[in-house]
C-alpha cells in the first residue's frame, strides 16, 4: 500500500528550485540508495569470520548434544549402582561409568543442560539488570551517577566466587537459584559498558532532539539509548555466558555445586579428582574437554561479534 503511494508521488516530484530545466522524475532530494541495514552488514561480517562459524557450530552442537542427546541415548542418572562403577569405555557405556555407576556420556549430557541453562539464564539476568542500571546511571549523570557507579565499584571489589559460595551454601542449590545468584552478582561489567556507551550517546544530537520534542527519560532510555548501546551488550552476553559456566564449574569442583541428583560438569570433575591417579581417564578428559570447548566457543563468538560491530561503520 505504502509502496504504491510512494511510486506515484516519486514521479510527481517537486522540480528543483533554481536549477535549469532538467527533465527529472526524481524528487528534489534525489533517490535513496538501498543498502543493507547495519545489522545485516554486521551479520555478513560475522559469517565471513571462520572462527566465528566454528564457535557457533560448537555451541549448536552442545545445545543439541545436551538437550536432544538424552532422547536418543537413554541412561539412568538417578539411581546409583556401585556394581557398575568405574567401568572403562565399552559398547554399553561409550565413555564408561563413574564411581556411582552413572553412565558418563549420559551424565555429560545432563551436565551440559545445567551448564547451558545456568550460563544463558545468568547472562540474560546480568545483562538486563546491567543495561538498565548503566543506562540510568549514564543518563542521570552528576551525583546520582557517581553514587550508582561507586556502588558498582564496591560490588566489583568483593570476589564473586566468595559471594556465590556463601549464598550457595545457605540456599538449596538448584539451577534456578544458582543462576539467580550468579546473575544478581555479575551485572556490574555490562552496567559499566552501557554507562560508558550512554555517556557518549547522550551528547548526540538525536537525544537532544528527542528532549526538545518533549520526550521523557523513559522514552530516551528505551527507544534511543539502549538500542544504540545494544551492540556492546550483545558482545558482552557471550562472555558472560562463558564466565557463568566457568563459575558454576568452580563451585561444583569445590563441592558447593548443584544438589544431588542434578548433574553438573564441575561436580563431575570434582568427583573425579582421584580418578586420574587411578587411571580412570574417561572421568576427567571428556568432561574437561566439553567445558573448555563450550567456553572457548562462547569467546570465539563474542570476539567475532565485536569485530562485526566495530567494522560496521568502516565498510560499504
Amino acid at each position, binding site marked *: 500500500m*505504502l509502496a504504491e503511494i510512494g511510486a506515484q508521488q516519486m514521479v*510527481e516530484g517537486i522540480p528543483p528550485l533554481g*536549477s535549469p530545466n532538467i527533465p527529472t522524475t526524481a*524528487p528534489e532530494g534525489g533517490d535513496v540508495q538501498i543498502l543493507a541495514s547495519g545489522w545485516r552488514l554486521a551479520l555478513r561480517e560475522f559469517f565471513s569470520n571462520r572462527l566465528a562459524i566454528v564457535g557457533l557450530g560448537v555451541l549448536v552442537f552442545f545445545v543439541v548434544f545436551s538437550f536432544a542427546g538424552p532422547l536418543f541415548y537413554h541412561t539412568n542418572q538417578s539411581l546409583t549402582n556401585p556394581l557398575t562403577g568405574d567401568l572403562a569405555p565399552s559398547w554399553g557405556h561409550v565413555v564408561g561409568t563413574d564411581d556411582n555407576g552413572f553412565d558418563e556420556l549420559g551424565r555429560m549430557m545432563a551436565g551440559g543442560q545445567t551448564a547451558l541453562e545456568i550460563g544463558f539464564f545468568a547472562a540474560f539476568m546480568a545483562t538486563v539488570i546491567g543495561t538498565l542500571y548503566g543506562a540510568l546511571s549514564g543518563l542521570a549523570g552528576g551525583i546520582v551517577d557517581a553514587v550508582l557507579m561507586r556502588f558498582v565499584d564496591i560490588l566489583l571489589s568483593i570476589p564473586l566466587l566468595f559471594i556465590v559460595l556463601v549464598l550457595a551454601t545457605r540456599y538449596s542449590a538448584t539451577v534456578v537459584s544458582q543462576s539467580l545468584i550468579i546473575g544478581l552478582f555479575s551485572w556490574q561489567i555490562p552496567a559499566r559498558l552501557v554507562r560508558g556507551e550512554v555517556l557518549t550517546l547522550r551528547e548526540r544530537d538525536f537525544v537532544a532532539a528527542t528532549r526538545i520534542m518533549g520526550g521523557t527519560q523513559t522514552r530516551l532510555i528505551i527507544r534511543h539509548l539502549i538500542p544504540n548501546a545494544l551492540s556492546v551488550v550483545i558482545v558482552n552476553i557471550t562472555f558472560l555466558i562463558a564466565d557463568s559456566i566457568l563459575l558454576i564449574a568452580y563451585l561444583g569442583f569445590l563441592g558447593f555445586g548443584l544438589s544431588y541428583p542434578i548433574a553438573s560438569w564441575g561436580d563431575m570433575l570434582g568427583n573425579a579428582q582421584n580418578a586420574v591417579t587411578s587411571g580412570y581417564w574417561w572421568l576427567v578428559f571428556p568432561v574437561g574437554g566439553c567445558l573448555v570447548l563450550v567456553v572457548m566457543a562462547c569467546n570465539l563468538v563474542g570476539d567475532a561479534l565485536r569485530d562485526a560491530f566495530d567494522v560496521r561503520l568502516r565498510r560499504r
Partner: protein
Amino acid sequence: MTVALEVKNLSTQIRLSRSVVEAVGNVDFQIDAGETLGLVGESGSGKSMTGLSLLGLLPNGGHIIEGSIRIQGRELVGLSERELRATRGNEIAMIFQDSQSSLNPTMTIGEQVAEPVRVHREASKQEARDRALEVLELVGLPQPRERLGSYPHELSGGLRQRVMIAIALACEPKILIADEPTTALDVTIQAQILALLDDLEERLGMSTLLITHDMGVVAGRTDRINVMYAGRIVETAPTGRLFTAMRHPYTQALLGSIPGLEQDRSKALYTIPGLPPDLAPPPSGCRFAARCAYATEQCREEEPPLTGSDGHLFACWHPVDGPIERLPTIVPPEGATPPAVASANGGGHLLELKDLVREYPVTAGIILKRKVDSIKAVSGVTLHVDAGETLGLVGESGCGKTTLGKLIVGGEKADAGTVELEGKRIFELRGRTLRRARRDLQMMFQDPYASLDPRMRVHAILREPLEIQKIGSRAEQDEMIANVLREVGLPQNAVERYPHEFSGGQRQRIGLARTLMLDPKVIVADEPVSALDVSIRSQILNLMRRLQAERGTSSVVISHDLAVVKYLADRIGVMYLGKLVELGTGDDIYRRAAHPYTDALIKTIPVPDPAVKRADVAIRGELPSPRNPPSGCRFRTRCPRAQDLCAEQEPVLREFDPGHVAACHFPLQTPLAAADTPS
C-alpha cells in the same frame, strides 16, 4: 621557470571488500617553482586522494595503478617505502586539515617540530631544537622559546595549525601540500593562516598545492586552479580566467551555487541537482552528465577529453561561456502568502529573550565537584523574533551562538533571564504543559550524521515527535509524514530506510522534516548547511527559503557563515564571547557595520572572486577564554580602535538606524541619538 612537481596520467584505486573505487583517474598537472596551484572539488571528488597519492600515504587498499609523479625530474611512483620515507617531509611535505588529531598529544611541540630535522638531516638534538625554534618563529608562534615545551592541547586551534605548518616546513621542502589547511578554523584565524602561507611561499620560494572545497580560499591565493569532479580534472585554468571565463558546466554551476554576500535574497540560488556519482564503478561517458543541464546523448556515452588552448583546458562536449546568468526564478515573494500570525499577546513579539545568561560551571574534585569557575557561554542577551521573521545569528566558534539556540528551544536551562513565547515563560512550566509548549519551538541540527538515531527507520524518526505529543491516529500520522516528506523533496520510499542509507544532504532534509512535523512557531536551525558540500548546500538553502515563504514560520538561523545567514535572515545578530555586539538588517550589517568586530568579520570572509582585493588580516590574535572574559568591552583585546575607556566600561547597545543597534564606545558609524551615550 623550472617545474617543481609534474604529475602525469595519475590513476589511483581503492580496493574495498566488494568493489574497487576509482578515486583518481588520469590526473595531469604541474606546478612551477614558487607557484601555487589550487585543487578544488567537493568531498569525494578525489582531491585529497590526489594529495595522498603524491606522498604515497594512501589508505589501506589504495594504490597507484598508473601514471608518474616527478619532483624536479625524479620519479616517485615505484619507489620503495624506504626511499619514499626519505622524500616525505624532506622534499615534499603536507599540512593536514585537523591539527587536533594530526599532532601527537604525548609529545611536546618542540620535539614534534624537531623530529623531521632529526630524521632527515641527522641533526643533533641541539641543532634540531634550534631549527625548531627558528621555524616556529617563522610561522609566527608567539613566544616560541617558551612554547617549545608545550603540549598540543595547551594551544588553540589556530596556534596548532601554525605548529603543523612549522613541522611541514622544518626541512625546507620544495613542495608543500596543504589539504584543507583552514577548514577547521574560524574566519578570523583562517585569514591569519592563509596570509602566513602566502608570506612563507614568497619568502621560501616553495611550490604549493592548495587542496580545498572553498572557492573563496583559492580565489585570491593561487596562480592556477584545477577543478576536480568524480576523480577527474574537469577544468584547469589560470585563476582569473577560471572565475570569469569558465568553460565547464560544473565549474559554472559550482560558482553559481555559492551564496555571496551580495546575493539577492529574493532570488533562488543556482543548484546542481542530484548527487555526485558512485565511483565503484564510475559511470560511462562524462561523469557530470547526470547532473548537467547541457548533457546530450554524446555526453552519456563518450567521455570528453581534456582539451583547450592557452593553458585553459576543460573536459566537456558542450562547453559553456563564462559565469551563469543569475536565474530569473524567484522565491515566492514575501508577503504573497502573508504570515498572518496574529500574536496572542496583542502586537508583542512572538519570541522574546530577556537578559539570557548561561554559564557552565568548571568543577574541581571528583566527588564533591566544587565549582571553581565558570565558562560564560551566554552573558545577558536580549533579542526578539517577530512572527514570520527569520533572525540570523553569526559569530566565531565559542561566541555562544549555539548555546543561545539551545536556550531558545529549552535544550539548556538558562541561569538567568527569560524566554517568552507569545508572552508566556514556557520553560517555567512543568510536566504536561511544558511538553505541550515544546511543540512550538523545534530545532534543526548541524551534523546530519549525529542528529538522526541510526537504529531507527525514517518512519519512526518522523513519527516520534507526533507520538510524544500524542497527535493524530496512526493513519493520520502516516499521512502527515508523507506530506512532510514531499515538502522537503524526499521520495516516499524513504520511510522504510535507515539514516545511513541517505547522503548528507538527504539526511539534512530528514532533519528538517522532523522539525516540521510538529508545525512549530519557531524553528532554530543550528548551522543547517555547514556540514554539506557546496552543491548540496544551495539545495538545502533554497528549500529552507521556500519553506519560510510557504509556511511563514519564524526561525532563528545560527551560522558562522555570514553569507548563509544573510541569505536566509531578515535581521542578523552578531555575537562575540557571549554578548550580542550588533543587530540589524542584512544591509545594516553588511554595508553599514557599526561594530569593529562585524566590520572585521566581513573583511576576512574569503570571497570567491579573485578581483576582490583581499583585505589585510583585520583581526589579530585569538578569541580570549570565555572563562575569564576581558573587562569592559569583550572585544577590546583584539580591537584596532580600543582605548582605555573600553577596558573600564562595558558599552551598551546604541541605535544607529531604526532597528540597527551595536555595542561599541567608538563605533564606525554615528549613532542616531548622541544623547544615548552611556553616562
